[in-house]
Structure formats: C-alpha cells, structure tokens
C-alpha cells in the first residue's frame, strides 16, 4: 500500500455507513479524487474538521484497492470567515461545484488549484462575493481553454465599444450589431459589461477586494458567463439556485422582508 501526501481543498463529502465519510478533494499535484475518511463522523474524530467542504488541508492518504484512504490531516485554512456568512458560503460552495464540474478525476492542474485557493482567500478577506465568483469563472475558463472572447467582434474583428452587442456561447464570444443577425443562442448585453470582463482577466487576486462594479454591469457579466458555462457543461449548477435565494438576505444575514 503506497502512501502519499496531498495539498488539497475538500470539494464535497457524503456519509458512508455509520461512522465514515467519502470525501472528494481537489489536490494540487493529484487532481480531483475521492477518498474514504474512516470514523470521520465520530465525535472528536481527528479527520472530522478536515473532511468538511471549503477546507484547505494537507492530507495524508494511502492507496486502496477501490478507493484511497485518508489517514491523517493537517488543516491549513478552514475558511471560518466564509462559513460565517450565508452569502459567502453560497458563493464558496458555488466555486467548488463549478471546479468539480469542469475537471476530470486524476487530472492535476496546479495553476487551477492555486486559482481556486486564492479565490477562496479573496472571499475570506471580505471581497464582494459576486465579483470574486466572476473572477474565478473567467480564470477557470481561461485555464481550461474555454475563454469567451470579449475584446473584438468575432465576425468583423472590430473592438467592442459601449453599444449593445450579442454574446453567443456557441461562437464563444461577441458579435457586434453591424454584423447582421447573431446566432440563435445569443443574448444582447451592453458592450460596457465586456470592459469589466477584461478587467477581471488580468487582475491580481489580492486587488479584487478594492474593485467596485456597477450592479447592472456585474449582472450582465454574470449572465454572459452563466450562459457560457451552461453551454460548456450542458447543465445548470445546483448551487446557483441557492445563491439566488440568499440574495434576498441583507449584510447582517437577515431576510429584509418576510415572505
């Protein structure tokens, strides 16, 4: 039985039997993989905290016949700041689900791991969770080669200005209004929203906290990326419904208006 160590972010976990858990992790050097955390549901288990989603830990695993086994864990960051606010939890879970949906098992990608980790630290630092999510979406798409083209019209190569433009996930970018009828899957958005996509493409993660986007531009950018991601995955992510639901809560975590 081979043992190895993996710098990992826990993506999700499911209960197994009476006391155990199966965790899905994204490891920097090993990629996405599943492992069983024996006894992790027992009170006082040393593996309990490290098998919670949204935890960055150094995990010690041994290869098993069917599934690897988590033997020891050393938590590096449990992101308590994210977990104490319903809005940041919702976005944090969304980042994990987004990454998990795009990557295959055992396909290491240290750059993408670092992007996820830095995005989680940005969320932890109190940055706008919506901007952080847009940043991560863009960086993930760039890293995996699915980056949508926001700079120029895909048909005439003209730079995008402030006028309304069509965003087509099938084409993977923008078609300007002068280039005739856009593809059937296109949505119309103000060209200004693409400026913010360009800003997020090249920014250092630690500067995201200082960013302020107009709400309408952020919404339009979110819509374009959501359509693009849906086109690539061919399904909607489950955690987006929860993000929409907690959007009704104010900064204190209270629902402003009773339903």
């Amino acid at each position, binding site marked *: 039985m081979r043992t190895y160590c993996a710098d990992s972010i826990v993506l*999700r976990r499911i209960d197994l*039997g*009476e006391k155990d858990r199966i965790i899905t992790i994204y490891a920097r050097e090993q990629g996405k993989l599943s492992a069983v955390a024996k006894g992790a549901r027992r*009170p*006082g288990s*040393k*593996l*309990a*905290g*490290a098998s*919670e*989603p*949204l*935890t960055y830990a150094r995990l010690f695993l041994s290869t098993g016949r069917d599934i690897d086994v988590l033997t020891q*864990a050393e*938590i590096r960051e*449990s992101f*308590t700041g994210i*977990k104490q*606010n*319903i809005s940041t*939890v*919702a976005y944090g*879970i*969304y980042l*994990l*689900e987004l990454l998990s949906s795009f990557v295959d098992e055992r396909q290491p990608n240290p750059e993408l791991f670092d992007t996820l980790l830095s995005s989680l630290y940005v969320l932890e630092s109190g940055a706008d969770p919506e901007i952080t999510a847009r940043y991560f979406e863009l960086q993930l798409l760039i890293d995996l080669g699915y980056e949508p083209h926001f700079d120029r019209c895909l048909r005439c190569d003209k730079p995008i200005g402030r006028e309304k433009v069509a965003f087509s996930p099938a084409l993977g970018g923008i078609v300007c209004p002068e280039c005739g009828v856009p593809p059937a899957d296109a949505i119309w958005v103000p060209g200004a929203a693409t400026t913010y996509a360009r800003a997020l493409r090249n920014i250092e993660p630690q500067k995201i906290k200082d960013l302020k986007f107009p709400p309408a531009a952020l919404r339009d950018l979110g819509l374009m990326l959501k359509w693009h991601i849906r086109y690539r995955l061919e399904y909607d992510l*489950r*955690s987006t*419904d*929860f993000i929409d*639901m*907690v959007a009704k*809560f104010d900064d204190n*975590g*209270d*629902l*402003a208006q*009773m339903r």
Partner: protein
Amino acid sequence: MHYAKPLAKLVSEFEKLPGIGPKSAQRLAFHILRINEDEARELANAVMDVKQYIKLCPVCFNYTDQPRCEICSDAKRDRSVLCVVSEPRDVVAMEKTNEFRGMYHVLGGVISPMDGIGPEMLKIRELLARMTDGEVKEIILATNPTIEGDTTAMYIAGLLKPLGVKVSRIAHGMPVGGDMDYADQATLIQALQWRREI
C-alpha cells in the same frame, strides 16, 4: 451464487438497505432461514406496523403513532422554547439528556446546495407558521456543526430574527473527554469563538 428464488428475492431486498452489501445481505437472509416461523412473522409484522402506523406529527414533524407526538401532547413541556433539529433521531439524542424541557421542530434534512436540497424542501415554512401565535420566545438551532448544518441555521436565523424572537445556536467546540493536543484546528477555532465566562 444461485439461490432458490424466494431466497434470492430476500437477499436482493436486504441489499437495498443502507450500508448492506451483498455479503451482509446474504448473511441476514440465511439468518432469517434459521430462525423459527414466529420470529420471522414478528419481524415482518414490525416492518409492516411502522409503515402502517408511524406518521409525522403535524406540529413538530417528529415520528409518532398518535395524532400528535408525545412531546407535543405533553402539557408540562415549556412551549416558549423551540429546539430546531434536522432529523427525528436528533430529538431522541436531545431527549436522552433529560435537560431540555421545551418543544421541538424537525426540519427533515438540511440545506445542501450541491445536492440540490433547498430550504423549500424542508419544514421551514411550517416552522414560520408556528411563530404566528407569539407563544414561542426562543428558538434553539441544533443542527449539526457541518457546513450544511451551519448554513441551515444561518438561513433560519435570517428568517426569524426580523420577527423579534430570540434565536440561539448550540455551542460548538471541544467534545467532552476530548484531548486538546489531538483536536483539529477547526474545532479549536470554534472552541475559542464560542468560549464562555466561568
């Protein structure tokens, strides 16, 4: 392996139970073959009885065989305090302490965005309905200290606080008999955050 048809059916039914694999299913089925007919009938009747008589209490959503569960029917319980738990087995765990004399509300699960379990799938609307008569003064959120349990607690707190009701969360941190040296960082951070003056 080839079983006689009725035995194969029993093995396949056992295999559907949580945590039961093919080997365990086979062991249980052979055990049933060995016991006498009365014992087998008692087992079959017990299974049928729970399906026939056990319902959810219309007030707290705990399991009961009465029109209202024992706790909701007990006039001596304190109706001003409501303990919110995720599963009926959590009521059993709380009752074993003999410390809590208030009422319960069973949500029937926890919010889990990745599994597609949203608040509308839990008994949260019914919890809000219990607040309308003003009898409840405090809500204790006793969901598990997991990301789903904490999210559920935050969601419910967000709904209830504007109503002016006191909302509290069960303490998190070191387990009784635990060893500081072996506690993970997440537990110690929680223990520090939820510390109290003595």
